[in-house]
């Protein structure tokens, strides 16, 4: 199937998933993930090109609810669970390059 999994692959995937790994974790996860991918090689060997993929067991389409106004979640209750709030909004660290 694909190339064997390298430590660089795992480091790349961790960065995409916004996880930082110690070098010891990187080592361990590379071995463990490689063994799972190796087990999955059994499906790699199957010739099933003509078989359509299934994303969902029973696809329901155009699922709508009644279009009637109703109360939404209580704003104070929702904001009470946020790590940081300012002026009824979620507060986050800076997202651009300028000084905070």
């Amino acid at each position, binding site marked *: 199937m694909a190339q064997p999994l390298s430590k660089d692959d795992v480091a790349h995937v961790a960065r995409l998933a916004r996880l930082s790994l110690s070098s010891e974790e990187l080592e361990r996860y590379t071995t463990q993930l490689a063994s799972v991918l190796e087990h999955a090689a059994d499906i790699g060997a199957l010739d099933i090109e003509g078989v359509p993929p*299934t994303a969902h067991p*029973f696809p329901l389409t155009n699922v709508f609810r009644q279009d009637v106004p109703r109360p939404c979640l209580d704003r104070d209750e929702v904001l009470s669970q946020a790590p940081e709030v300012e002026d009824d909004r979620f507060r986050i660290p800076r997202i651009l390059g300028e000084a905070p």
Partner: protein
Amino acid sequence: MTSVVEIAAAVRRGELSAAAIIEQHLARIDKDEVDIHAFNLVMADHARARAAEVDGMVARGEDPGALAGVPVALKDLICTRGTPTTCSSRILEGWVPPYDATVVSRLTAAGAVFVGKTNMDEFAMGSSTENSAFGPTRNPRDLSRVPGGSSGGSAAAVAAGFAAIALGSDTGGSIRQPAALCGVVGVKPTYGMVSRYGLVAFASSLDQIGPFATSVADAALALDTISGHDEADSTSIPTDSARARENLGRGVDGLRVGVIAELAGAEGIAPDVAARIREAAEALSAAGAKVEETSVPAVRYGLSAYYMIAPAEASSNLARYDGVRYGLRKPGADITEMYMATRSAGFGPEVKRRIMLGTYVLSAGYYDAYYGKSQRVRTLIIRDFEEAYRSFDVLLSPTAPTTAFELGAKTSDPLTMYLSDICTIPSNLAGHPAISVPFGTGDDGLPVGAQVLAPAAGEPVMFQVAEVLEAAAAAKGGGR
């Protein structure tokens, strides 16, 4: 008195108080919870107040509902407004949901009394409840063993008599496998049969909520109470209820039962477990069913397909834990550093493994080879089941390959742990219902579970067969 049907009937007639029932269960929790650790949170004050409310309704001549006074435990990924919901994860520790899950509203409307939130593998990822950030749950039948997982706390709570009913969630076997290991009944309903509004998502094309109980009839009543269409869940199927009780008491005379050759005698199935399943097949045959071995060839690839599809969906679902709207936040100089610090501190090792595996199989260059191929295998499994159900009403297999294993036995090798789910995964991939019923014990004296599988919306016939297995196990003296 532990039967749900009996408790509810007696409370509704005013012959038994919900308060007395809840005190019995809280007393057992006081005595044994310190050893078992089934709960992340015991809701004793809430339960007492709620029981008084139920008794007040009866006193006023009102009917509290079909589950009047029945103590229910909830897996800690089912949202309860005003009560913490942690998913056994540091990243949600202390989070208090602003709304109730639909199953919570339905149980409340039926008169149930919540006793606590149960321990689980973090975000439902695991087969032993050892992946909880708050420490493992122990099997009430043998404290040196795991209760299974991921809904191990719910299974243990019912097995220990802490609750008469518990809810869990089943993505690849997380209700049925712990039910088997703890010696209780566990049900994964048809995909879409029970609303998932307020269920914290793991793998959305597979997740389903279902009940644990000590008997098939109790599980059927619980499922009928929580099932049925919900407009708040767009994957909810348009039906009123699972009709789990519809065929109870009818026996199995003339029903066709297929024993899945690939699972019943597969490599990795312990000989004592395989022997109990043969006896279960013989018991159904003796009760009048036509029992034959059959083949569902593609189930052999279920484990591989599942461990691509479920992590792929999880990597997407768990992207929401970013330290912005709820849960843990660890500081960082900019937003990316904050995300990385929060997620690295908040998620445990198994969750990180699955997020990375899922991210990998979805990434450019690997998508077709792993994820795309797994989706095609999923189609093959559905086709092979369809073929089998042309000849059989239900299928039979073991629920788990072994009885409960020792704590720590499989924690160092994730793949070994994943193999615990080989018999249960195919039903999730197909969206079909399946139930685990205790059927005797293994050589170690610990419970074995027999799994009855049915086609989509096949709950009536599935419970019909399960009830006969339960009676046969009781007659042999091996069940309960």
